[in-house]
């Protein structure tokens, strides 16, 4: 605990009522040292049933998904739908700096626990609500499964193969975006509160969080769309491994994902010429190919003259064929080593195994072994999202078991008597 006090957010108290839509918010604040208390319904957060599971045993105490996003939190159970539960929650709010929730919009208000009520209990408190579409507006009550937000946020439209449906990622991502936006919004509000004493309500829309990942697609539509419509051209939809970047004004097709000896690489002719960095990258690649006797006609190619807006598809195909053949003769590691050494814009497509074994992450001591005494085992977690000189990231505690800190928090910190605890347990409030 002393260590946690010295951290960046040491001493700040967070009540985390989120399910999977908002886990990452509290996790991020907890990683920065805040004192995060996960508040679950009695019997445990339903999100504990999301896989994968430890040793593939489906069990509320063994969800690896839940572990990943509830590290560095303590855990209590509380039924806030009961009158007693609501009162206890308000008592907890008195000393809290943040309340994070991801219930359906309006749910906390209906329980009399919305921001307007919590503000009366503690004017300093910051309440952060993370929902699929936000607290107000025509879609506020829409169901938002992760994939639905991926499509409503615009990413799915341009992801996938041309002959198959548009795609999401196999590890759904939208709720993570909602969570990190929640953490960021909470911190902006926090800085205001620390200087004025006033809390406020932070209202996150996961749909908007996804729109922010579109890079430049929306802006490009706005600027080029009318011209393209007139010309009978449409926005690039799914182009599989071929498309590289928004290429609204360019006719060519270039491959981006390349098979190599032991997997795949990412490289594109779109960043092979023109600018100084691109030319450096291409020259280094050709030197590498030449050493293997595979440079062919590219040996004397003038990359400074490569203009990807004017190049013919035939030339694209010719260059790509030579380079593609070279990739097939090399491993991810062989190519990437040269990328680092000679500033080539080529990277490997890592699997989970590749990431775990990646020497650079090991050298930076990224991984953290976390003791799970209840499993009699230790699990390796991804470590710090940034390195901070003053207060390095660390594991303060493994993810909590269901209600693990009930006594510590209700009795020691809130001052409930043993009899009160017993009664609350019997009435299923805790």
């Amino acid at each position, binding site marked *: 605990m002393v260590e946690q006090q010295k951290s960046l957010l040491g001493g700040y108290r967070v009540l985390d009522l989120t399910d999977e839509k908002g886990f990452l918010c509290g996790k991020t604040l907890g990683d920065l040292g805040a004192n995060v208390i996960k508040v679950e319904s009695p019997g445990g957060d339903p999100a504990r049933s999301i896989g994968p599971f430890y040793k593939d045993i489906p069990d509320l105490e063994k969800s690896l998904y839940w572990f990943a996003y509830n590290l560095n939190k303590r855990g209590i159970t509380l039924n806030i739908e009961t009158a007693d539960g609501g009162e206890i929650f308000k008592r907890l709010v008195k000393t809290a700096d943040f309340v994070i929730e991801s219930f359906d919009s309006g749910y906390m208000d209906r329980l009399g626990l919305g921001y307007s009520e919590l503000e009366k209990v503690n004017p300093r408190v910051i309440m952060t609500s993370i929902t699929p579409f936000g607290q107000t507006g025509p879609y506020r009550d829409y169901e938002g499964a992760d994939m639905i937000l991926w499509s409503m946020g615009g990413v799915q439209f341009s992801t996938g193969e041309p002959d198959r449906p548009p795609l999401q990622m196999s590890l759904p991502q939208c709720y993570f975006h909602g969570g990190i936006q929640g953490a960021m919004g909470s911190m902006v509000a926090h800085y205001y509160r620390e200087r004025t004493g006033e809390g406020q309500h932070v209202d996150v829309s996961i749909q908007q969080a996804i729109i922010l990942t579109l890079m430049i697609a929306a802006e490009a539509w706005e600027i080029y769309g009318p011209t393209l419509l007139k010309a009978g051209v449409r926005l690039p939809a799914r182009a599989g491994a071929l498309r590289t970047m928004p290429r609204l004004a360019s006719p060519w097709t270039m491959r981006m994902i390349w098979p190599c000896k032991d997997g795949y690489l990412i490289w594109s002719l779109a960043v092979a010429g023109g600018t100084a960095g691109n030319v450096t990258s291409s020259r280094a690649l050709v030197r590498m190919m030449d050493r293997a006797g595979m440079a062919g006609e590219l040996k004397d190619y003038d990359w400074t003259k490569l203009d990807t807006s004017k190049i013919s598809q035939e030339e694209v195909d010719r260059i790509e064929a030579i380079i593609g053949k070279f990739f097939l003769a090399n491993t991810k590691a062989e190519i990437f080593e040269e990328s680092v050494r000679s500033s080539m814009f080529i990277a490997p497509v890592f699997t989970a195994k590749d990431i775990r074994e990646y020497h650079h992450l090991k050298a930076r001591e990224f991984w953290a072994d976390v003791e799970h005494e209840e499993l009699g085992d230790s699990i*390796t977690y991804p470590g710090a999202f940034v390195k901070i000189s003053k207060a390095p990231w660390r594991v303060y505690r493994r993810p909590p078991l269901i209600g693990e800190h009930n006594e510590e928090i209700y009795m020691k910190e809130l001052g409930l008597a043993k009899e009160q605890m017993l009664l609350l347990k019997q009435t299923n409030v805790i």
Partner: protein
Amino acid sequence: MKDVKQAMDGVKIAEFAYAGVGPQTTRELAEHGATVIRVESHRSPDPLRMMSPFRDFIPALDRSAFGTCYNTQKYSISIDLNMAKGLEIARELVVWSDVVLDGMTPGTMKKWGLDYDSVRNMRPDIIYASTSQLGQSGPDAGFSGWGYLLMGMAGFTNITGWPDRTPLNVLASYTDYIAPWYLVTTLIAALDYRIRTGEGMVIDQSQLESSLQFFSPALLDYDVNDRIMGRSGNRHPYAAPHGAFPCRSADPLTERWVTIAVFSDDEWQAFCKVLGEPEWTKQPKFDTLRGRKENEDELEHLVGEWTEDYTAEQIMAMMQGAGISAGVVQTPEDLFNDPQVKHREHFRLLEHKVIGWHSYNAPAYKLSKTPCDISKPGPCLGEDNEFVFKEILGLTNDEIATLLVEGVITTEADAPKIPPVF
């Protein structure tokens, strides 16, 4: 301090950064009141200024919306840091600032004498944040890549696609839209820490390490169960149907799709009602999630035959009315017409000096008391030279003229011919 209007009022930031991550980090702070000065140069411009979309399809440094969209509310100055006098200005800015944001390739700031150790000597309580693909230390720290490459290294490419095909990237440089939010969160925590302790610090962001937080379950699954997550198309272990289905399209050149996710058996019953309970839905093999998973190919085919007769918007409304997750696979055009996106005021129209009226993204969160301010479009390169040099650094007209003549302040004449990169 009661007169604080916006959350980050009074925070001063010197930005030495290009491309996606650094600029988006400081934009977030600028839109909430921080004063951010972007140090740029016409001689080595931010590559985003050289990328599509350009006003009227004409490539030029001030014509790209990509070059402006991450720089709302900021001030841009144009100086050459490879000249002694340019560095002098940079040093003055650093002394003025609370936060130095280094988004350059590792080693660049050291070359200029603007690395943490040098800056700390000038400004002991500085908060110095570096962001790069793989961090400031470690054997591969020198790797100079882009977010679309890092997407592959962070594991996302390998889990995007169909089981029988090659992996895929999304259209965007995916990790560039994860890393900035971690850095903003950390920077504000650091600013608060400094208020409490008086101490500055150095922050080293490896964009890979930040992005891997979005891949954690797959990493734990490998560590514990030796399983390497692969590609499963649109399928989901606890839902069926769970996918994108074709819809009616008014425009023959544009495909229309809707996504539908049915999790519980109750949801399945509600789903069948929406379809009008045709015969095929009554087959017992579809009654349970297990049955639907076992017959998923057939199920998807049947659902797709039904969806083809409706528009994506109709299906979304029907399904959502019955409490089932469904959404239009929205195109960029759809986003501008989406009533919820409009209600949230996500796109903010601003008049840029060269590009004209165009939209900027608002943050995904709304603050009830201190809303963001999005009123100053991303600046043209060097647009704020006069303001910054006079009002912030106190230079005289004569001094500024000399810097111009000596080429320390760069101008359009110094700009390279722009190869349209994309």
